[in-house]
């Protein structure tokens, strides 16, 4: 075994250390420690002459370990690691003792401070004995980016990245991109038409030379790690020849098989072959195989579309033979922007959703006010009557421990938007039932004030129930919204023609599976968890995987776009660097010891360890690109097979036992 030759360097830091700690005594003491061949003191170790001392000693005295006792390692450990490296040693053969922040600056008894410094130096010397050379590695980063979700977040991120001439694969589950925003009529607080601002972006995405669109597709499997992900995407069969379809929509017009239109929130019908909405990108049809009689009868029934399609895009072959296709992609970074689901208010029976025709969700009302929607933009009841009064119920499923504890952030504002549209389009009396009005964005409070001016009746109270049981003549034939007016301390009954439930935004029902595919954790509320809520809001525990938009938490369009651009920025910054640096002080497995029990795999927040079969036995294997070196796996390892490089048990116990000596 190599002889350990340690050099110890004590910094005066001017007088900030030397004024309290007896540096001469300390230096003399350090030299007496085992394996220490030289010990020196200097006014400023971090200065060039100070660093030169170390380099010179490494060469002349053959040092193979170095300890500097000075300020906090958080300040100068990188400096001295560099010095040691410049001197010809591995930078990890270095240990730092903090005798300034942790000693001379907090103690004034010189004798005790000197004693403490001796302890800290001794601990560093004993610890550095066990240090080993470690190598940080750079691996190349694949510049291609995968974006999941073709809503506003995914589109924005894709455009930002593609505009920098980087290849983006945009995967969307539905037949068209656009997401929830395509279903919205107008956007608060400016009231610009959602379609007008969205469809140009959709077009840009559709035509972008650097964006490859994979609609009607879902990611099935992700392997690898930052810089080098391998992704399997299932491209579902559209049952049409995509290259031939010209989007003429003749097939849909003639198709006799109907079902509720997803895009119209079930308020209108679509056919078995359909284009989801007029501005769909790509503007090609898709066949709902479950509904298509031709497919279901194995070609024995119907087939109207085949006859009508002049372009030859629909043929017996496409309908009967086309199957899902698995596309394999290789990318360096991934942005997950899978959006949200609207909370289903029918689980709150007292609100009568699905029981009363004129109790609607926000998304349904969006379609009602939309000129292209099922009522051609007229606010009317289900049976076509004009609406004279509307109740808007806030916090349906939000801020309620029975459903979702969190605030959905957008409901106050879209509730106000509905109030405005109800006033403007139907001149209706509007009653807005709220708990708190949360109007925090740019122009939002002003919008609220404007709605007050427009004469909206704001009722502070969470609605208790919605009923059609009239108690007075005025209530006959109406829906009655029952609540406390908490500001008056009185129960209130408001008869209205229509009720809009401002339903919560909730995590996608399949968020758990999506989280597993991309190794993203979820909060208790089901949304994806960011790396740090304040300082790393779009990163996830998995390096190279970022999140944007409502999959992370409910948010409005401006925040979503900002977050999408932030996620794109993260990806672009990696692409611009071109490589990924791997942490050196990470977990390592002694395969002779490891049982492959999987406790490490279970506890790791980054999915770095994986139990694999090697030579017929199970053993844990650590993915170096994923491991952050936190050490929790080593704590749970029952056998002692796992060690954290640079923080091994030997190293820390050497330090501990050195501190308990003398």
């Amino acid at each position, binding site marked *: 075994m190599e002889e350990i030759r340690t050099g110890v360097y004590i910094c005066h830091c001017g007088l900030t250390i030397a004024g309290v700690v007896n540096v001469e005594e300390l230096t003399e003491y350090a030299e007496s420690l085992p394996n220490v061949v030289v010990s020196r003191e200097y006014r400023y170790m971090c200065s060039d002459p100070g660093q030169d001392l170390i380099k010179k000693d490494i060469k002349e005295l053959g040092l193979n370990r170095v300890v500097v006792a000075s300020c*906090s390692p958080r300040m100068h450990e990188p400096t001295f690691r560099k010095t040691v490296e410049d001197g010809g040693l591995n930078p990890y053969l270095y240990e730092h003792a903090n005798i300034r922040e942790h000693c001379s600056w907090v103690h004034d008894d010189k004798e005790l401070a000197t004693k403490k410094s001796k302890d800290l130096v001794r601990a560093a010397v004993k610890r550095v004995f066990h240090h080993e050379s470690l190598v940080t590695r750079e691996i190349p980063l694949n510049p291609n980016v995968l974006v999941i979700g073709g809503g506003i977040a995914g589109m924005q991120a894709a455009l930002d990245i593609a505009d920098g001439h980087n290849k983006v694969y945009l995967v969307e589950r539905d037949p068209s991109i656009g997401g929830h925003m395509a279903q919205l009529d107008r956007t608060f607080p400016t009231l610009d038409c959602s379609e007008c601002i969205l469809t140009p972006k959709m077009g840009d995405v559709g035509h972008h030379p650097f964006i490859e669109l994979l609609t009607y597709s879902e990611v099935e499997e992700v392997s690898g790690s930052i810089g080098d992900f391998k992704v399997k995407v299932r491209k579902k069969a559209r049952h049409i020849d995509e290259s031939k379809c010209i989007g003429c929509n003749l097939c849909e017009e003639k198709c006799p098989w109907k079902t509720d239109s997803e895009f119209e929130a079930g308020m209108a019908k679509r056919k078995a072959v359909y284009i989801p909405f007029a501005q769909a990108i790509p503007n090609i049809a898709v066949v709902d195989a479950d509904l298509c009689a031709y497919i279901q009868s194995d070609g024995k029934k119907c087939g109207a579309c085949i006859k009508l399609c002049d372009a030859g895009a629909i043929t017996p072959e496409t309908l009967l033979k086309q199957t899902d296709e698995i596309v394999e992609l290789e990318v360096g970074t991934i942005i997950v922007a899978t959006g949200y689901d609207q909370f289903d208010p029918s689980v709150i029976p007292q609100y009568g959703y699905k029981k009363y025709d004129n109790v609607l969700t926000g998304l349904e009302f969006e379609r009602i006010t939309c000129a292209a929607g099922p009522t051609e933009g007229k606010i009317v009841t289900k049976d076509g009557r004009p609406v004279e009064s509307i109740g808007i119920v806030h916090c349906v499923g939000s801020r309620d421990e029975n459903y979702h504890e969190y605030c959905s952030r957008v409901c106050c504002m879209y509730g106000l938007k509905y109030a405005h549209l109800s006033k403007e389009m139907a001149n209706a009396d509007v009653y807005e039932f709220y708990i708190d009005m949360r109007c925090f964005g740019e122009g939002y409070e002003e919008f609220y004030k404007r709605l007050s001016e427009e004469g909206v009746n704001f009722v502070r109270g969470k609605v208790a129930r919605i009923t059609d049981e009239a108690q007075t003549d005025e209530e006959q034939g109406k829906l009655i919204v029952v609540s406390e007016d908490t500001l008056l301390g009185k129960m209130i009954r408001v008869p209205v023609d229509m009720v809009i439930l401002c339903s919560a935004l909730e995590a996608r029902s399949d968020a758990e599976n999506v989280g597993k595919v991309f190794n993203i954790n979820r909060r208790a509320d089901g949304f994806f968890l960011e790396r740090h809520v304040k300082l790393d809001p779009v990163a996830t525990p998995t390096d190279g995987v970022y999140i944007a938009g409502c999959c992370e938490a409910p948010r409005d369009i401006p925040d979503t776009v900002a977050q999408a651009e932030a996620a794109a920025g993260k990806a672009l910054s990696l692409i611009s660097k071109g490589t990924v640096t791997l942490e050196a002080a990470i977990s390592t497995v002694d395969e002779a010891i490891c049982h492959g029990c999987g406790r490490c795999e279970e506890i790791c927040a980054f999915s770095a360890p994986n139990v694999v079969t090697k030579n017929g036995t199970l053993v844990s294997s650590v993915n170096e690109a994923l491991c952050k070196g936190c050490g929790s796996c080593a704590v749970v390892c029952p056998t002692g097979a796992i060690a954290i490089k640079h923080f091994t048990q030997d190293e820390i116990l050497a330090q501990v036992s050195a501190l308990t000596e003398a």
Partner: protein
Amino acid sequence: MMAGFEPQIIAFCCNWCTYAAADLAGTSRMHYPPNVRIVRVMCSGMVDPIYVLKAFEGGVDGILVAGCHLTDCHYIDGPVKCDETVNKLREVLHVLGLEDKRLRREMVAASEGVLFAQVINEMVEDLKKLGPSPFKAKTEALA
């Protein structure tokens, strides 16, 4: 209780929060008793029970295990794991008859230099009241 007894404390501090808090206490020149020696770990979740047991074997009078608050962790959930380790360890140490206050678990954020100094002050006070660790006799006997 010994007159003039000065307890010996080892503090395992996570690199990102509590170690930084101790640095901040230094930069702010907050004075606290020199009875503590800090061992830097990357994460409080990295603290193995053996580190604590070995320190007690060595005769220290008190141990602090400190790291980030639950939501600040650099490694997502290190503090939760640390809590589990410390809680289990506490049960073991209780059977051994060690006073609960000799093992302290704290969450001290990087900004909480004041809290760090306060924790050390309190520990020194508490440990002075408790007197030397029952394991100290052994070290001294062996020495």
